[in-house]
């Protein structure tokens, strides 16, 4: 019936699989989901719990689908829904105070999704399939790292991670709200951007190119974040801009992007704020998120 037009079925026949990499990520997602879910349940008003449960449930189901997907369109579906549902969760928890940041996050999400769409369409034209194996081969064929497709990959991952950066506490009252319990969960959603790099470049994490790609994504995230902070959140003041740049650079150091020398300075600068956060019983969530992120990194290293 269909000879002559070869169309890969979209989503049907998509496979979920759980290798060591997937299991490590799945464990991280579920641990964070339970921890922050319990916190949210306790902290939220009774009348909002149903709505919160719906969007929060969407986040975890979509994230798990994205993590376990062995095919690009299911992965795309998973991380896309997880992204939107996470922004909705944040809005449900923080209310209108979060509106401007949510707008920026939504913008980054949409931008990331669109670039990912372009990337997948571009790779599909070479691979004629949406399985990660075929797409990986096409990615290598199209030039990999320093090429147009490499740029698209770095940009899409960067957009997702930039959404995460918007949630971190910054000095100078850049944002009208403070991070809450879902910060850690959002880490996972945005790390999905990094996962795309791993999937398309080298799932075994053995090739140096995958690490360069991940670092490239972090760099792209800093640029995207800066653009959003200046353009969308209207940070026109030069002082504020410089402050933003300084803090972003510091965060790049935390992520291991080669500026370890500034960690001490950063710690000194953030110490009073961290103490303040601790007093508000919020710091534990960030700590758990960071610890889990490190655990995931350790697990990934072990896998490789």
């Amino acid at each position, binding site marked *: *019936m*269909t000879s002559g037009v070869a169309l890969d079925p*979209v989503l*049907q026949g998509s496979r979920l699989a759980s290798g060591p990499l997937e299991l490590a990520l799945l464990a991280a997602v579920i641990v964070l989901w339970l921890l922050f879910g319990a916190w949210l349940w306790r902290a939220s008003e009774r009348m909002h719990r149903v709505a919160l449960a719906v969007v929060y449930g969407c986040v975890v189901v979509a994230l798990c689908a994205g993590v376990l997907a062995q095919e690009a369109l299911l992965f795309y*579906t998973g991380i896309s829904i997880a992204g939107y549902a996470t922004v909705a969760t944040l809005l449900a928890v923080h209310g209108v105070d979060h*509106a401007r940041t949510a707008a920026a996050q939504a913008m980054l999400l949409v931008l990331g999704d*669109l670039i990912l*769409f372009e990337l997948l369409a571009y790779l599909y034209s070479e691979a004629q399939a949406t399985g990660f194996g075929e797409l990986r081969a096409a990615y290598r064929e199209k030039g990999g790292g320093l090429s147009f497709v490499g740029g698209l990959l770095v940009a899409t991952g960067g957009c997702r991670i930039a959404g995460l950066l918007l949630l971190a506490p910054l000095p100078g009252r850049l944002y009208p709200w403070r991070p809450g319990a879902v910060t850690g969960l959002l880490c996972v959603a945005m790390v999905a951007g990094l996962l795309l790099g791993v999937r398309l470049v080298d799932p075994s994490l053995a090739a140096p190119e995958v690490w360069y790609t991940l670092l490239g994504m972090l760099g792209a995230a800093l640029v995207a974040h800066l653009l959003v902070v200046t353009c969308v959140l209207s940070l026109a003041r030069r002082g504020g801009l410089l402050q933003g740049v300084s803090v972003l650079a510091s965060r790049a150091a935390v992520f291991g992007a080669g500026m370890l020398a500034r960690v001490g300075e950063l710690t000194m600068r953030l110490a009073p704020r961290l103490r303040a956060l601790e007093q508000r019983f919020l710091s534990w969530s960030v700590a758990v998120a960071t610890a889990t992120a490190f655990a995931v990194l350790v697990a990934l290293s072990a896998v490789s």
Partner: protein
Amino acid sequence: MSFLLPLALVASSLVTGLIIFALAEESVRLRTALNLLGALSKLLLVGWMLLGVYNGVEYEARFKLLPGLPLVLRADALALLFVTLSAQLWFLTTIYAVGYLEDSPHRSRFFGFFSLCVTATVGVAMAGNLLTFIVFYEMLTLSTYPLVVHRGTPVARRAGETYLLYTVLGGVLLLLGAAWLYTLTGTLEFRPQGIVSDLDASHHKALVGIFVLLIAGVGVKAALLPLHGWLPKAMVAPAPASALLHAVAVVKAGAFGIVRVVYDIFGVQFAAGLGVMMPLAWLASATILYGSVRALFQDDLKRRLAYSTVSQVSYIALGVALVGPIASVGGLVHLVHQGIMKITLFFCAGNLAETLGIHKISEMNGVGRRMPWTMGAFTVAALGMIGVPPVAGFISKWYLGLGAMEVGAGWVLLVLAGSSALNAMYFLPILYRAWFLQADGEWPHERHYPRAETSLALLIPPLVTAALALAVGLFASVPYSPQEWAKLVVLREFYDL
């Protein structure tokens, strides 16, 4: 039987409409029963024909009209793609309209023309030649005009005049094109790979002229730039009529007409050889971006949806104009997907107007908490319009993107990305207002219903169409799905199978 079925399909709504005209205004139950019976019988007939056409049965009814120019009704795969959409959405729109117009005057008139409008749509879809197409196309114009001016207000009358001006002009262009075509070919019959491919190169300019006339003629209803002006003005019509205009009948008839002209009059490869397809693709792309930009600045919800239609319908023309099988699948399947998503949005807009008196986006703060089911359906359809997977809109955009890469038109990916970004910019703020902002106070004209947030007749149709939008996205590749039908059409056009 192959002769009777096309006739029965047209008659099921025609007879219903004529009887309804004769009914007294007070015969509410009888009118409702007739409406539902007509819609249900059409749905069953379409199901029967779907099975037949999928298995290779040919349905055709032919009558003498003019010497050498018969009236032909034929059910091919392309016709059934459109007819199935119309029949399904007509059934749901009928239920919705019964609830929406519960206390309104002139219901017999409304439902009579409503049925005639669907009759004309089915005729347009099943037309076996250009003459039949024009007859039903004009019938569609005349039967939708009373729906546009139904409220009888000065604004409605002015909108109706604009609508008539545009569509009659479109009809004239179509007729001129058809007459010119007949002088060259001696036939107006629709055929796979077209009817003009035997003409030699000396007719090149004439064929380009005919193409421009025919596309301009159908482009008015398809709201192609710059012929779109009537659509936003026609938003004064009641919500069921708007739903009909945007998702079931008028705009879709125009888009369908573009497909027919390209596929069955010129043939897609021949049209590409004439050099007319790339300009059509550019025009469609310009319309896609223009409609989205204009939608951004509308505070009236229905006007924003109208400009969104201007943009989204051109995806169909774009898919066809790219001259590749995969892009064509993307364009054709959007004929159905856009219809399902857009009718959901219009149903929801109608629910907000009817239940809370909300017409503007700036009045929608907190409406998600007051009407969660309606806004849930709206959310699904809006996300689909943006192209978020797995809702139906993603499938269309995915195949359009792949098709563009297949034919080396990478710039189309930028158009798709730009359009999706603009869609996000005008739909996400609505969702934010509805779900996360507090209501400003009293709603403009709130009505309470005992069993649900609104009348069940108004609530069930958008819920069903939202579920359909999800289902056709999730199960895009199952047999009999819109995507499989689009594939059948493309196989016939590109591979003569």
